[in-house]
């Protein structure tokens, strides 16, 4: 089984984790157009590549960011949100 490294709990089997998806910066709801809001809500960057994703270690409820190559399933690094080194 794939190993994912929780920044708090270290390497654990990926079945202990919940995948949320790629980090998507929210546009300002007050100023953005309906169209760009819908784009934010529904559209995704579906192509493969290195992505910053939200993951959660379920047992400890630790949310963190994994930088992952989504074509090769390689986790390049994991870190706590906004604590990028």
């Amino acid at each position, binding site marked *: *089984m*794939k*190993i994912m490294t929780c920044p708090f709990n270290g390497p654990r089997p990926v079945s202990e984790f*919940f995948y*949320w998806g790629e980090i998507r910066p929210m546009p300002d*709801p007050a100023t*953005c157009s*309906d169209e760009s*809001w*819908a784009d934010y*809500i*529904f559209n995704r960057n579906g192509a493969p590549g290195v992505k910053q994703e*939200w993951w*959660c270690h*379920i047992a400890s*409820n630790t*949310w963190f960011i994994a930088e992952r190559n989504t074509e090769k*399933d390689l986790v390049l690094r994991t870190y706590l*949100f*906004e604590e990028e080194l």
Partner: protein
Amino acid sequence: MRLPPVPGEWLDRSVDVSFSFEGKTYRGHAGDTISSALLAADAGILGRSFKYHRPRSVLSMANHDVNAVCQWGDRPNVRADVTRLQAGMDLAAVNTFGGLKSDKASVLGSLSRFLPVGFYYKSFHTKRLFPMWERLFRTLTGLGKVSFNTPHIRTAKRYGFCDVLVIGAGPSGLAAALAAAEQGAEVVVVDENARAGGSGGYVRGGFGPQAEQLADDPLTRVLAHPGVRLMTETYAAGYYADHWVALVGGDVLTKMRTKSVVVASGAYEQPAVFRNNDLPGIMLASAAQRLIYRYAVRPMQQAVVLTANQDGYRAALDLAAHGVEIVAVLDLRLSSTASEPELAVKARGIPVLPGHHIVEALPGANGKSVVGAIVAGRGKMRTLACDGILMSIGWAPAANLLYQAGTRMRYEQSLEQFVPDTLPPGVFACGRVNGVHTLSARRLDGQRAGSAAAAHAGFGDARVITVPAEMECPTHPWPIVAHPKGKNFVDFDEDLQLKDFENAVQEGFDNIELLKRFSTVGMGPSQGKHSNMNALRILARLTGREPQQVGTTTARPFFHPVPMSLLGGRGFSPERRTPLHARHEALGAQWMMASVWQRPEHYRLTDKDRQQCIREEAMAVRQNVGLIDVGTLGKLEVIGPQAAELLERVYISKYANLKVGMTRYAVMCDESGVVIDDGVVGRLAEDHFYFTTTTSGAATIYRELSRLNTMWRLDCGIVNHTGAFAAVNLAGPKSRALLSRLTSLDLSATAFPYLALREGVVAGIPARLMRVGFVGEWGYEIHVPANQGATLWDALMAAGKAFALRPFGVEAQRLLRLEKGHIIIGQDTDGLTNPFDVGLEWALKMDKPFFVGQRSLHVIGRQPRKQKLVGFVLDAQFNGSAPQECHLVIDCGEIAGRVTSIAWSPTLGCHIGLAFVRPELAETGTAIAIRLTDRSTVSATVARTPFYDPDNLKQKEPA
């Protein structure tokens, strides 16, 4: 025939094992496999082929003899070549019609001209007749039979950890294991055979173990090394990400996590393709050697050896040393390097015919044996009499796990074999799978790989070891002979002949993957172990390409098939129970699953049916007082200066202005404005809220709120108390009187008004109480620490006796809330429902600065409504069969909505329900038509909700 004891044999001759095969009783020895015992007893053929039902026997003795597969009681598809003989086995060959000896389906062999590759695509497809043909095909295909009486076998799984996992305990694997262990790594070696040693044990060249082997037996040293664990009768079934390897052996699945892997899985000896190459008595040379040295079985009396490498000569010597007359050694090569074994063969006076091949093997009168071979070479044809033929023309790497690990392979011309080109990090290969065939070189290669694997795992440095190149090419590039009459088999699982490939390519299936899919080559139970390489060579030749250009098909798990009982393990279906579970059980609860929880649906009474019980429970709440376990609700707490801010952002209503000691209904939307959850938010202090979620939403809501809180960096923390608190709802006109007996809290309407939240002591237990009205009566939701839940329940039940308290279940609760017009998220909403659809505009505070879903709801709010959730009632006199949930509302012949909830209300004396309808049908008083399953319609009238106590008088102090 059984030989006298052979040094190193795996048999325990002191133990006789009696078994039966096809109704006849045989005896073998402990240590035999089914096949070896049957051959030792000269039992005749072992099985029938898949398509033509030709008689078959041993091919490999290496777990790919797919034509020697047995039904063993309720076990289908038991492989005779490797399955250990057990006393009392009652065996039969699979897929025969009328027994192995006189299989009626063998008539298919004579029809083979009509049944070329893919014949079934070309006919049998008239609409009328196809079902009949399909039944026939299904009867003919398939191997073993399942028995419906087989029990559910539950096996525990094991988890293993090591530094270096070596797959294969042959000469290279053992060397690798030793090398790695000597560098300090903790090593596990697995081998699918009953004993370690691999080909080192059975490729001997005629005499005892080879001299160099005796001098320095690596197995002894491996067994003696404390850093090595050897697991025999265990195969690596699959390689998965991050060096996670499935090991199957001893009726257990071991999931091995290793730091590096050495694949020393060897090679599959490959069959030659010539007419009748499938006759019993024709086998791979290594199969004959296994039979002799492992099971002391002489596989034949007079053998023709077809070879293209020194392994064949070695096999000839092995046979000759055990009383087999070698009629001739046919060497496909015109010239060879005159290896040691070849010289030894010649020295024994065995005829060697270079540049010769077998044109056809000759069947005996009954077709169940080989009696000779027509051979050709140097322009001449001749017939050799024999009762067995050994094929030793080359090898294909057992690279399945290497492929699964992501290894890029390349075709090495000098070896006529695919070898690893680029290995993934932490994966190493050695021995025959790596293109190294000479025994001494295999050991060196093993040392090299083992050392490198240990170094990768952090033990020592990788030693530089040079492995000498092979002196001869071990594999012939074209061991294939055409014959006008065919029956020259390439795939023994699927009965595919050479011409099947020619025909498939002619039809345009000229890509290796298309060829596989059209011809089914490699798709049988052996998964192409002896057929893929020849298929690839044939395709390359037919299309004028090199093997490298043709490429291989993808090797997927499993290496050998794995029983479902091992994969399934003990089975794990977790369910959650509230702290009151035993109390409900004692009260006769009828259980139901509510997401992962077991909840009482209702409480059974001996003399009453389900409906009666539910209605009585509901009426008890309306008239006296009822008690329901609501401990499955999500129970969360948010604490901190910005706790209110968090709730403001995640719920559609406002909470900043919620007074301490009060609660408010709470609805949550997702970013697209879809309603996803609801609950009640209570304020314990300025910076402290306690709130509930739906039962099924608890885990996900907690998780998502935590994420949002992480992202927003608010100054507050969230705690999930779902499992930590027990919770009950005490509801009914007498609830206050009951509760007052157990608490000193002031329960007056002024001190503890509707929607208030209080902390106090109930029955001696610290509790949080909320005055909520979900079921439409005066009531209290009481939350206490989980370990005191039962005490609270008992106290309430005891005190309740005086008030005719009844426990009630989920169904009564659904009915009561329906009377009150409350929606259930997930039942009265679906994956696209927004707050406007279900009349939640009153809760929707669009003037807040922000909440999740708000911006989308701005857009949705401007759009015309597509549907509206309304209440409806059936006529009080209605006595037909009532609509059910999800029956459709039909208007002018079109779907205009659906019923989401419906029940007969004992309080109102009629059927009441909620339904989505098109907006034009939503006006109170509108007649709507609901279509039932039998397509009849029932008329209903849109009605205002709540159906019961519309002015909420029940929550007010009686005047």
